[in-house]
C-alpha cells in the first residue's frame, strides 16, 4: 500500500512519519508513538475508549486515518498531567470515584475536557450529552457526571 508522509502534532510534539493510507490514528498513537492511553475497545467507533482530541474536538481515533490527522493538533490522555501533577479534571475523577476498571477513563476525560474547554460551567444534561459517545460498563456514569461537575467548579474557584 502507498505510504504517505504526515506530520502530527501530538501533545505539543511534532512527529513526521510515513504511514500507509489505511493506517488509523489509534494505530499510529499506540504502536508508533507508544502512547497507549487511547484504548482499542471496538474498532468501529461504538465505544469511545479511543477518544482523543483533534484540534480540540473529540474524535474516535479508530475511525480517523493517520493521513486525515496530518497537520492537526492531537491531544491524548498522556498530554494532560505534568509529571505526577494531575489536572483538576483528572483529580476530580480520582477523588469522586469516577474510575473503576479505567478502560474508558482516558476517552471519558478527554471528552469531558473538550466540553469544559468550550462550556466552563455546564449543566448536568450538557455533561451527559458531551459524554454520550463514551461507553462505561462499570460505573453507571453517576460518579463520572459528578466528577465533571466538580472539576468545573474547581476550575472556576481557581480562576477567581
Amino acid at each position, binding site marked *: 500500500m502507498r505510504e504517505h508522509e504526515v506530520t502530527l502534532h501530538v501533545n505539543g510534539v511534532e512527529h513526521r512519519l510515513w504511514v500507509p493510507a489505511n493506517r488509523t490514528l489509534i494505530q499510529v498513537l*499506540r504502536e508508533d508513538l507508544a*502512547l*497507549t*492511553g*487511547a*484504548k*482499542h*475497545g*471496538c*474498532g*468501529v*467507533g*461504538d*465505544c469511545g*475508549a479511543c477518544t482523543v482530541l483533534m484540534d480540540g474536538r473529540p474524535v474516535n481515533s479508530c475511525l480517523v486515518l493517520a493521513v486525515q490527522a496530518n497537520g492537526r493538533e492531537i491531544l*491524548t*490522555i*498522556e498530554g*494532560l*498531567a505534568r509529571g*505526577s501533577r*494531575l489536572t483538576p479534571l*483528572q483529580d476530580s*475523577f*480520582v*477523588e*469522586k*470515584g469516577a*474510575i*473503576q*476498571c*479505567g*478502560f*474508558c*477513563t*482516558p476517552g471519558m*476525560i478527554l471528552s469531558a475536557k473538550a466540553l469544559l474547554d468550550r462550556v466552563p460551567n455546564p449543566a448536568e444534561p450538557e455533561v*451527559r*450529552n458531551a*459524554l*454520550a459517545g*463514551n*461507553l*462505561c*460498563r*462499570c*460505573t*453507571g*456514569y*453517576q*460518579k*463520572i*457526571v459528578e466528577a465533571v461537575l466538580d472539576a468545573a467548579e474547581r476550575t472556576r474557584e481557581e480562576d477567581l
Partner: protein
Amino acid sequence: MKEDFQVIGSRAPRKDAPDKATGSARFIDDLDMSGGLYGALLQSPLPHARILGMDTSRAERLRGVRAVLTARDLPPVKYGVSPARYDEHVLATEKVRYVGDEVAAVAAVDLETAMEAVSLIRVDYDPLPYLLDPFEAMAEGAPRIHEQAPGNICVEVHQEFGDVEAALESCDVIRTGCLKSKNQDGGFLEPHGSLAVCDLQGHLTLYSSTQVPHYVQRTVAMVTGLPMSRVHVIKPYVGGGFGPKAEATPLDLCASLLSMRTGRPVKMNYTREQVFLHGRARHRFFHEMSIGALTDGTLKALRHRCVLDGGAYASFGIATAYYAGSLLGGPYRLPTMKYDGYRVYTNKPACGAQRGHGGVHARALFEQQLDLLADDLGMDPVELRLRNVMNAGETTCNQLNMSSLGMRECIEAVAAKSGWKQKRGALPRGKGIGMACGFFVSGAGYPIYRSETPHSTVKLEVHEDGGGVTVYTGSAEIGQGSDTVVAMIAAEALGISYSDVLVRSGSTDYSLDLGAYSSRQTLMTGHAAKRAAEDAKRKILEAVADVLGVDPQGLDIRRGLLETDGTPLDFGASRMRYIQEHRGWTDHPTGDRLTFREAARLAFIRNGPVVGLGSYKPPPLGGEYKGAAVGTSPAFGCSAQVAEVTVDLETGQVVVESITGAHDCGRAINLTQVEAQMQGAMSMGLGEALFEEVLFDETGRVANPTLGEYRIPTILDMPKIECVVVESNEPNGPYGAKEVGEGAIMPTIPAILNAVKDAVGSAPDELPLHPQRVLAVIMRDGESSGS
C-alpha cells in the same frame, strides 16, 4: 455504635486511580513485547459440523508464519471449568459445535500475516443438523452435540426441601408465572487478550486479561502438561470482567502453546466480534414458578422449574444451574422449595457466569410473582416483603445461614427515600413504581475444583527501611477496587496509614487466591490481608519488646505510632541509632513516641525480613444434599431497590426515571466504592432489563456482534441513582465486611419489571423489555380488559 477506625469506612481514593486517569495504567494490549509474534485463530463458520480433513500447508508456507497448530499437534486433553464436565478441546478434534469454535491457531511476525495465514487454512466440513433452541435440543430424536450428553442435557438438578405439593395445597393463594430471557454479553470495554512468554528455563509466563489468575494457571498447566510451578499467570490491569473473564480462554491456551512451540512471545487478542463469539456471559433462562401463600401474606412454598440455554460447552454452567435454584432460598422465610433445573447444550457460544451468577433471572421472576401475589392479597408489595423477610441468624430451607442480614433496613430505606407510600397506586397510567429485593453470596463456600485449599493467601512484607509495607496477593483487581480494599484492611490492621501500603496483586507468583468471582475478594482476600497484617504487627511488636525489654502484650501500633499500656518506653538509644543510620536524611523521627518506621527497622535489624502471612478458608458450610455446596457462603449481602419508569403507551418504550437502592454490605470498607459498585450493578441490570440481547441468525451466527447493535446503557440511558449503604456487622467478615459487587444487581431487573407492571397494568414475561414486547403486553392487557 461505630468503632474507632482509622482507615476503614473512609472515602479514600482508589490506589489505581491516578495511573488510570493519566493513561499510564497498563492493560494487556498495552504491554510491550518486542520481538514477539502475533497469534490468530481460525474459527468455525458453521454451528455444527464434522471435520473431515484439514490442509494447513499453504498457511505454513506463507512468509512470516512461525507456527500453525491444529488438534493433531496437541495432546487430546479435555478441559473446562467444572472438573465433572470437562468438555472442551483447545482446538476442535472431530467436530465443531458453534460458529466461532476454535479450529486452528497461527503465530506469525505480525497480525496481518497471521490473519492471512488463517485464511489460507482449508477445512473440509461435513455440516450436521444444529440446534439453536434448548427445547428443540431436549426433544426426542434431536442430534447429539456431545456424545456423552444424551438429550443434550449438560446437567440436571432436582432438589426439594420440605413437601412442596402438600404446602401448596394448604395455601390460600397461588401465583404461577414464567419469565424468558435472552442470550447476553458481558459488555466489558476491554476485549480479552493474552501474551505468553516461554523462557529457556522451561517456565511459561502468561499475561492475561483474566479475573482468575489461579484457575488460568491450573488450566494452562493441565493443557500444556507443564507443572503448575512453571506456569506463571500475571494479570495486568483488566478492563472489566463481570464473569465472562472468569475462566481460561482459547487465547490463553493457544498463546501459551504457540509460545512453547516457537520459543517466542506470542500475543493474541479478540476483536469485539470475537468477544461475542466467545460468549461465556449470562445464560438464557426459561423460568416457571408457582408461589403459594396464606391470606395474611405468609409465604409457604415455591415450585420452580428452569431450563438454561447453555450453548456448546459446559463452562460455568453446572454452578449456574444450581445457583438458579439455590439463590431463591432467601431473603424471605420460605419453608418449602422445589427446584428442577436443566442446563441444555445448543450450537451457540457457551454461556457462563455473569454478575449475580445464575440467580438474576430467577430473582426477577420470583420478585415479580411476589408483586402479583400482593395484588391478589390486596397488600402493598412492601408490606408483603416485610412480612416474610428473614432476620439475621436465620437459616434458609436449603441451609444457607444469614449470619447478618439488613434486609428489613434496606426495604425500609428505599421505601422511605423513594416516597413509595405517596407514589404507589397514585401514579397515572404510563407511570409506574416497583420494588424488589435480593441477596447474594460473599464468595462461594467451596472452590470450583474439589479441594481443601485455602481460598486466599496473602504475604505482607514490611519494607526494610520501615517506610511502609507491600501486600502480595494473587487476587484480581478488575476495576471493582479490590486493591484499594486490601490496602485499607492491611493499613487498619497494622495501624499505619493507607498511603504507606503498596499492593502488588494479580500474579500467581505473589500468592494463592481464587480470584474475582462470586463477589468474594472483600471477604476472603480481606481476611487473609488482615491476618497477614496482624502477623506482621505481632512480629514487629515482639522484636521491639525484645530490644527494649518490655512485655509485647502491652504494645500496639496506631496511626503509625507505638502505643503502650502506660508503661514508659525507653527508646532513646534506638532512635539515636536510627538517626545515625540515616545521616543526610531530612525526615528524622521526632516526638515522644516510637514511630512505626523505627519499630519496623528495629525488627528488621534484629530478625531479618519481617513478613506477615495470612490465609483464609471458609468453614464447612451447607447441607448434605446433592449440590448443597452451590449457594453456600460465609456471609450474604442483600439489597432492595425501587425503580420508577415511564412507559410510552403508544410505542412501548420504557424509560427508567430513577432507581433508589439500598445495600447491606456489612461494614463498608470504602463508602465511595460501595456506592460505585451499587451504581454499576444497577446500570448493568437496567441494560439487561431494557436492551441487551445477543441475536442469532438462522445459521447460528451472532447477528449483532458490536457495541452499537448490542446496546449497553449509555450515559443518557442512566437515571439518577440514590444509594443507601446499610451497614450490618457481619460476624464472618473482616471488620464485619461482606459483598456488594454482584449482589447489588439482584433487585434491578425485577424492580423495573414491577414498575412496568404498575405503569401498564400487566406483567411482562419476556426480557429484555424492547418496545415491541412491552407494546404486546399493553395490547394483551387491553384485549383482556376489553373482553
